[in-house]
């Protein structure tokens, strides 16, 4: 009985904290949605009001039209996301395996070099990388946006390497003794155990590509090739004032797919309990 009560109290306490924190985290987002439903004159009003005087659902439809090629941008973005997620999963897992499950001379020093590459500030690499793509004549196409993901970005390798390291040494050794080669160990043993981490990487890559606007800004020339994140830029006007309601409406639309994706995939993290550490 005492155990049950203690359990209830801790659950309630945790729930309370989560609810309070949740409100803090949700508030700006709620503001975003509320602004998206206001008529333009109320968007930046003083004092700020939460509820629009009338709900302008048509803002969403109008924002889509304002942006021009909304559906085209959406399909471009999905195309890029599929490519980059595939490329990332394939290459990062292979490379992370090499950095964690095989003992070779100099491995950890090379890994530090990998870490170091993440510290090169972005504007510094912008111009040389641009000229590289220029020489390959890839500017104006989608290639600069997805080909690099097949070459294993440092961030994802780092993430996966850390996870692979949490898996016990013995399972690899046992497999080697049984005569498996590295590729088989990789494919049949390690990868299945790392599902939560792989899902993590896939999700992050999806989001990163979905929201990336710097890359498309620099490498894409034709407006019909643009992505959604880049399309949002078209709402920012210099001397005409930004149409906040459209910007927020468009942003909400853009956030929604990733949100839904996340909500449904985060459950699989829980499934991961059984596969990674649940052995009794």
């Amino acid at each position, binding site marked *: 009985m005492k155990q049950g009560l203690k359990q209830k109290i801790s659950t309630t306490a945790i729930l309370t904290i989560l609810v309070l924190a949740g409100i803090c985290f949700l508030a700006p987002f709620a503001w975003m949605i509320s602004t998206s439903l206001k008529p333009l004159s109320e968007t930046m009003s003083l004092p*700020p009001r939460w509820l629009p005087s009338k709900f302008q659902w048509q803002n969403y439809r109008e924002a889509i039209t304002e942006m021009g090629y909304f559906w085209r941008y959406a399909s471009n973005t999905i195309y890029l996301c599929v490519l980059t997620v595939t490329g990332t999963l394939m290459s990062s897992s292979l490379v992370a395996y090499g950095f964690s499950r095989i003992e070779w001379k100099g491995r950890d020093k090379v890994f530090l070099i*990998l870490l170091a*590459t993440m*510290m*090169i500030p972005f504007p510094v690499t912008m111009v040389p990388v641009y000229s590289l793509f220029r020489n390959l004549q890839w500017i104006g196409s989608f290639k600069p946006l997805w080909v*690099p993901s097949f070459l*294993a970005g440092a961030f994802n390798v780092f993430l996966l390497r850390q996870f692979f390291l949490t898996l016990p040494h013995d399972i690899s050794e046992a497999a080697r003794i049984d005569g498996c080669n590295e590729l088989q160990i990789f494919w049949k043993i390690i990868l299945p155990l790392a599902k939560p981490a792989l899902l993590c990487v896939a999700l992050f890559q999806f989001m990163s590509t979905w929201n990336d606007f710097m890359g498309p800004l620099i490498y894409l020339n034709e407006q019909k090739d643009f992505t959604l994140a880049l399309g949002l830029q078209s709402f920012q006007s210099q001397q005409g004032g930004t149409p906040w309601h459209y*910007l927020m409406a468009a942003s909400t639309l853009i956030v929604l797919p990733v*949100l839904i994706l996340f909500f449904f995939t985060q459950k699989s993290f829980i499934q991961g309990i059984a596969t990674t550490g649940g052995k009794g």
Partner: protein
Amino acid sequence: MTRMERKRLCMGLLFISPWILGFLAFSVYPLLSSLYHSFCDYSVLSPAVWVGAENYSTLFNDDVFWRSVSNTVFFAAVAIPMGMVLSLSLAILLNCKVPFQGLFRTIFFLPSLVPMVCLAVLWQWMLNGDLGLINNSIRPLLNGINQILGTHLVPPNWLQEAAYAKWGLIFTGLWGVGHAVVIYLAGLQGVPQHLYESAEIDGAGFWVKTRHITLPILSPVIYFNTIMGLIGTFQVFAVPYVMTGGGDGPERSLLFMATYLYQNAFDYWNMGYACAIGMVMFLIILSLTYLSTKLSESHVYYEGK
């Protein structure tokens, strides 16, 4: 080298070959190019002219550069620990058996989905001195304190006051801890249940379990998030850039190293100088990462090793 070692070396290199290619193209080449240009007077569109260490000596004497360094260090020193505590706590809480787990996880992850341009604008509005949400929530509290203690506390105009601007930015950053939370959650799934169960049998409470089981097993992930935090905060650029409209903030309080680099490269057509700043940034982050790695060696527990 023994035959075994050679075989392992080959396998290792084979597995990491995709990365090596990318490394040469996207890291080595730009880094070398940047290093070379840091010793030149270069403006991207005209040929680079070698000037030796002139950029570095100017950099050393440049007050604005040192300001940007101190701003960046302050920001990192505050944001990293705060972020880590917040994300770790949230992850642990979200891992407990509470109703609506999925919903909560989504709520905390939500902010990191918001597009950059929106985020900056949204938070600019939230941090507004008179009418922002933050101040309107704090004000009743401060008024209460004022009445009790007779003080005259007033919530600051976050982004317009030099002393508070960075704090405004830190709050914006904390709002985006969703990434780190998700990573910690994934890591928490790897903690073997049986360890918790045996600990409970021995009478261990929540804190004991966390300190002696969760944290050590999670340590590779904590290391990961800390390093990523280090690298990320030292390169903070996009959000303050949009918030200040490309400027420095009040009394340069929002001028970070990456901002100063970007300004020099693209606004002032001083790419050589910008590369010098880049090299310095790179070295600073490199040394800090090396230090953290050395420090963590005794604390990080890798089961797979």
